């Protein structure tokens, strides 16, 4: 892993991997969603609204995967001072927040015709909303550290680690508490979902995951490019400073 800690090596790999992830992800997602809309039969209980799950489930998975990425990258940053770990954590925050918001919105839209309500304050929905607020907090903290110019991401990294406590709560919420939300349909090696729904769901999940990976790589490239430009401009300003100082002293003497 430490071989990829070198930003130059990472950029060489990310330059060709970013468009591959994006294009493959977009194509696979489009195929899965079109198939899900046109060829999947309506569900016996949910009717046509079952098609919403081809977006809702991948979005929920990526909302949680995004924060898991932040937590693992934060741990690596705090323990091993991996130069790219903090950048990876910052890069995963925005796509994670977007997918969490999509999960909440599509879940609410699905809930209205299925449960008869847009929202209930049960364990699963509330813990997912807490995750969205955690994302907002993390983005604000990491952005504040960047604006201060200290490069000190320790507070954001600790926040990323502490916030990870919410991930198992989201996952087990439908088991621990009474909920309108159904219990897990896919567990290790078993699925309660019919094959007609399972395959487009898996394809959409892989497609959205590739898009997530592509966006994280694009964000990492953007953050690295900005850091390199700032460092270069700072070096040039410092190199020019002594000359400016001499000129100013000279002016004073002449004056």
């Amino acid at each position, binding site marked *: 892993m430490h071989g990829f800690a070198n930003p130059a090596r990472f950029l060489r790999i990310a330059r060709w991997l*970013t468009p591959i992830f*994006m294009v493959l992800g*977009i194509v696979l*997602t489009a195929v899965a*969603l079109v198939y899900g*809309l046109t060829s999947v039969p309506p569900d016996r209980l949910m*009717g*046509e*609204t079952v*098609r*919403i799950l081809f*977006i*809702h489930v991948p*979005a929920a998975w990526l909302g949680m995967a995004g924060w898991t990425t932040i937590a693992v990258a934060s741990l690596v940053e705090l323990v091993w001072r991996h130069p790219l770990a903090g950048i990876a954590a910052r890069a995963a925050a*925005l*796509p994670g927040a*977007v997918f969490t*918001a*999509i999960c909440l*919105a*599509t879940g609410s*839209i*699905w809930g*209205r*015709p299925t449960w008869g309500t847009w929202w209930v304050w049960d364990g699963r929905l509330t813990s997912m909303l807490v995750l969205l607020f955690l994302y907002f907090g993390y983005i604000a903290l990491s952005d504040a550290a960047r604006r201060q110019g200290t490069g000190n991401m320790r507070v954001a990294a600790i926040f990323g680690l502490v916030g990870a406590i919410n991930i198992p709560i989201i996952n087990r919420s439908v088991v621990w508490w009474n909920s309108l939300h159904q219990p897990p349909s896919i567990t290790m090696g078993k699925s309660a979902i019919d094959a007609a729904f399972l395959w487009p769901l898996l394809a959409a999940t892989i497609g*959205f995951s590739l*898009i997530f990976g*592509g*966006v994280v790589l*694009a*964000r990492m*490239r*953007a*953050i690295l*490019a*900005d850091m*390199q*430009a700032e460092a*270069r*401009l700072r070096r*040039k300003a410092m190199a020019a400073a002594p000359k400016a100082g001499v000129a100013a002293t000279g002016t004073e003497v002449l004056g």
Partner: protein
Amino acid sequence: MREVLDQWTFVTAAYVVGIGGTVAMIAWAWISMRAAERRRERSREL
């Protein structure tokens, strides 16, 4: 009285939110990456 809802309206709304949000995120990430890389190239030329 039983409320009758057109399920396709909800399906359409969910797909607009999901696809719209994802496309906007991809476009923003790509454009901001290209802009940052152009800034880096400009800083090299200065």
